[in-house]
């Protein structure tokens, strides 16, 4: 679990599992300096964790590059027409109620 509390218990004999748990906080710069040093020390001796980290980062960057689509014109038109109609009904209802109370 990527929490700072857990991160603070990390020591020099980190296993790959612990490193994997810390990736989230490492990439968002939330590890304490000693934990980060140990994390990076592990990376220097473990090609598997380096490769794992690279593929994790690639996954995140791919998610971010999915991009946004424009709202289709017909959808925009339909939704705005729906909202205007609903608002218009409320105004009509308000004035009819007002007319009734003042009559």
């Amino acid at each position: 679990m990527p929490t700072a509390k857990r991160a603070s218990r990390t020591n020099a004999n980190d296993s790959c599992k612990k490193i994997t748990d810390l990736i989230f906080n490492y990439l968002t710069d939330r590890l304490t300096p000693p934990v980060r040093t140990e994390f990076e020390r592990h990376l220097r001796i473990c090609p598997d964790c380096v490769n794992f980290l690279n593929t994790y980062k690639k996954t995140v960057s791919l998610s971010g590059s999915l991009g946004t689509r424009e709202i289709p014109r017909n959808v925009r038109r339909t939704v705005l027409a729906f909202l205007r109609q609903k608002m218009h009904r409320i105004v009509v209802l308000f004035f009819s109620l007002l007319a009734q109370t003042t009559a």
Partner: protein
Amino acid sequence: MPAMTALEAPRSRASMSPAVMRKAIVKPSDATRVRRRRKSAQTDTAIVERLKNDDQEALETVFDLYSKKLYNVAQRILGEAADTEEVIQDVFWTVYRKAKFFKGDSQLSTWLYRLTVNAALGRVRRSKKKKEVEYEEFLPKFQEDGHHRVRPVVDWSDTLDEKYAQREIQALLGKALDQLKPLDKSIIILSDLEGLSDKEISATVSLTVSAVKTRLHRARLFLRGHLAVQLGHSAA
């Protein structure tokens, strides 16, 4: 010649320093975020005040400002165009009706994201349930001593762009995203696509920041594993 360490290995970005490696997840800096938030907060406060006074044009202003973002969020969660249109319709109508109750404890955008995610998740719950994929199958596995169970772990991050066209990669990722639990998918969308902070996501999906981080990390591990399997490698 001294022995090469893992970080000095010739493959991929292994020669990068850890500090450089860490900088992969680029989100706006805190200062930029604060500046943007102040500016948008001023605009939002004015719009909400107009909505509270039944200013109908204000709703169209909110629509112009946020409909694209909200449409994309709903579309990604739902996958169905018709459902997305109805969700967006409901969200903006709710905004108009409930603006009077908006106290400004959160940003307008957070409220809008919350309405959208809740509406989309509600529809997912009511629709036919898809068989849920077991996350375990795509999460990394470790030996009892904590080391990777399947070794070597393959770094496919460099070769992905060479082997596949952008559209194919997006299709692979889209397939993996669709296998996520709807709430986790929403969190990934809000974080990695919309760039919301963990705190903003926490306010949007009504979970603690810690729960958001845990779900986000697990969902990313799942996506990574799913991609690895689709590319012919082990998820571990």
